[in-house]
């Protein structure tokens, strides 16, 4: 069947795991990684100043704030690691990975989706707690939010596949990890 060759999930009219679908998200994650790396290098005192075109000392306030230091490493470092895992989990696997490796697709969805919403929390905290805005932090948050929508369709395809696995009483565990022994048993 044509659907099999092209990796289009049943009941869909396109394949959410093609490179055309995934590369833009990986690209956004790479830009996010660049921004977060720059911010964390400032937080780690590698760079003495931070680029802030609009909000005066806003970036300084935000990037040296209590919230940014809540964890053992500055929040910029975590952001950079987050974007790196977004890019990696977006890149791993072939164009039928929604079926052949559900674990990576679901991990990708969780990294981009729920973790992306943390950036919204940080956007809220900037003005409410510190009366300051940080331009590059806002750019990073915008990238995180833009990535969510296009990443979710692939996760939906994987979750629907897992549903069909459950209905056909094939091992969910083996299907989730993409065991060769269960490949092809469920469409």
């Amino acid at each position, binding site marked *: *069947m044509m659907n099999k060759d092209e990796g289009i999930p049943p009941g869909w009219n396109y394949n959410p795991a093609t490179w055309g679908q995934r590369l833009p998200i990986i690209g956004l994650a790479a830009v996010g990684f660049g921004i977060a790396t720059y911010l964390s290098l400032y937080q780690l005192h590698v760079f003495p100043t931070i680029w802030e075109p609009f909000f005066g000392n806003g970036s300084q306030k935000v990037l040296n704030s209590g919230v940014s230091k809540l964890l053992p490493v500055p929040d910029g470092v975590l952001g950079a690691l987050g974007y790196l895992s977004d890019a990696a989990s977006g890149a791993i696997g072939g164009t039928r990975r929604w079926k052949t490796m559900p674990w990576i697709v679901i991990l990708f969805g969780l990294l981009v989706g729920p973790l992306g919403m943390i950036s919204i929390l940080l956007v*809220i905290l900037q*003005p409410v707690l510190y009366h300051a805005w940080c331009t590059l932090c806002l750019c990073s948050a915008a990238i995180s939010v833009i990535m969510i*929508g296009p990443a*979710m*369709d692939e996760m939906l395809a994987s979750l*629907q596949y897992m549903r069909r696995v459950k209905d056909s009483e094939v091992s969910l565990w083996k299907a989730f990890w993409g065991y060769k022994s269960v490949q092809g048993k469920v469409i």
Partner: protein
Amino acid sequence: MWAQIINAILGIWLMVSPAILASDKTVANNDHIIGPLIAAFAVISWWEATRVVRLYNLLPAAWLLLAPWVLGYSDTTAILNDMAVGLLVIILCFVKGKVDARFGGGWSAIWGKDPIHAQEAARQPRV
């Protein structure tokens, strides 16, 4: 999708309006919290697979209609601003827009009974 672009702009407007309207702290905090939420949910719903997320904005938008009275806003401009944005966002939430792609029954097909993707899978020959 145009409706959700406008909702995203309305969310961003809430984020900047305290500075433009010189709002007091209560109004500013409320707008600084609700604005990013509305903008984020609107942006997520730009894509067809997540268009349903536009409805998440009903809650923060409904709060904008109540907030001036619950939080006791004293400034008429701020009352009008929050209530107008809230009302617009609620109306635009219901504009679904064009969805061309098929998603095997969508998100509810993960748990719903006899979902479309399973029906179509049953019709496809096995290898």
